[in-house]
């Protein structure tokens, strides 16, 4: 994992999200939120303060550009916090394996489960916060489903094409 490479990809994902993906509005409401990839490519470290702080800032930058207050920051931070739990659950990794952990070297089934779970949680929180009320729950759920599918397709296509480069 190269620090510079992660930085480069984060910026690229940010620009992609702001300039392209936020404007897709498929059937007026459905957008992919591919910037969640930030959570997947950020390396695992013992000290989590840096990771949590960077995720918060990353989400906040998106909020600045899309006028959404803090919903991206909130949902991304939430996913960042629970990431470790799901890594332990799906990959059965302990503290010692953090340094060598790499999504590309894991079995596809596990990776898929991991990414699917995190994406669904993130999108659900994001879209419910955007809705900001307890009405229209069925629309929130449907939107979560559609947006997640969209994001997952984009993510897996991207990671398949850039397999060697993104690591």
């Amino acid at each position: 994992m190269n620090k510079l490479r992660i930085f480069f990809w984060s910026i690229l994902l940010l620009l992609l999200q702001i300039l392209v993906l936020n404007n897709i509005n498929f059937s007026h409401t459905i957008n992919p939120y591919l910037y969640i990839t930030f959570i997947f490519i950020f390396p695992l470290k013992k000290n989590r303060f840096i990771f949590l702080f960077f995720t918060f800032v990353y989400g906040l930058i998106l909020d600045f550009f899309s006028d959404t207050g803090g919903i991206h920051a909130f949902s991304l931070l939430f996913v960042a916090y629970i990431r470790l739990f799901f890594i332990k659950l799906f990959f059965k990794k302990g503290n010692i394996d953090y340094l060598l952990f790499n999504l590309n070297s894991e079995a596809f089934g596990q990776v898929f489960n991991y990414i699917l779970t995190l994406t669904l949680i993130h999108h659900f929180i994001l879209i419910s916060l955007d809705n900001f009320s307890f009405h229209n729950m069925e629309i929130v759920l449907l939107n979560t489903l559609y947006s997640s599918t969209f994001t997952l397709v984009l993510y897996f296509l991207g990671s398949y094409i850039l397999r060697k480069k993104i690591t």
Partner: protein
Amino acid sequence: MQQLIYFIRKYRYFLFFLLLEFIAINLIINNHSFHKSKFVNSANYITGDFYNKTNSIKNYLNLNKENVELLNENIIIKNENEKLIEILNTVTKVKFIDTSKQRRSYINGKIEKNQYSSNFNFLTINLGLNDSVFSEMAVINSKGIVGITEFVSIKYSRVQSILNKNSKINAKLKNSNHFGSLTWNGFSYNTVQLLDIPRQAIIKTGDTVITGGMSSIFPEGVPVGTVINIEKGSSIKRIINIKLFNDMSNLRNVYVIKDFDKKEIRDLEKFNNE
């Protein structure tokens, strides 16, 4: 004390996480109250400039269409002007015409960021304090209403779109003086809802709805849209769906209306309330 330090050390990540989440929640709630979001919005220096740069390409590609739209608007205004001149010529008995009074002036601007997919949509326009735009000014375009300025920075300002669940605009029917408030339920980006219309008002599909002029923000008579249907239900909670004249997904040039009498009206209303 020992225990407290131990507790903080044990849950330090969780506490840090909670702190950041708390900040985020605060920002979300601030974002939902009118012109309270001073910090997180796209009207600040960096984001505004970023959108400005990226938009220059889009502007170039749309020049042709924009030109046609502006020409059409020009023709309408020219014709209107001719009519008014003609009317003015027929008036002979008036000895003195006050030409110094002008209630409103228009400032033209461009939309830097359009948004219509969220439940609480905001636009960013390239007018700010430098162009003497302030908070709570009406934003319209040639076809109809767009929104109200909310937060103003030096070069840019954030506009609360009519497609925002918090927006409430006074509107009335064109053929009568019954007025209600214009809101949005968050479903379709070209349909808004008119509420609180008194039950004696006769409404048919196809009726035109315009702004009411009861608030000091919008002048009377800015076009809004046409009635498409009236939802069945008790007459007090009657919801009227209105199709907007504007295509909110395709906005470019806007005007901000500066009202010179606004301060006077505001002061008067304040005086009444006390």
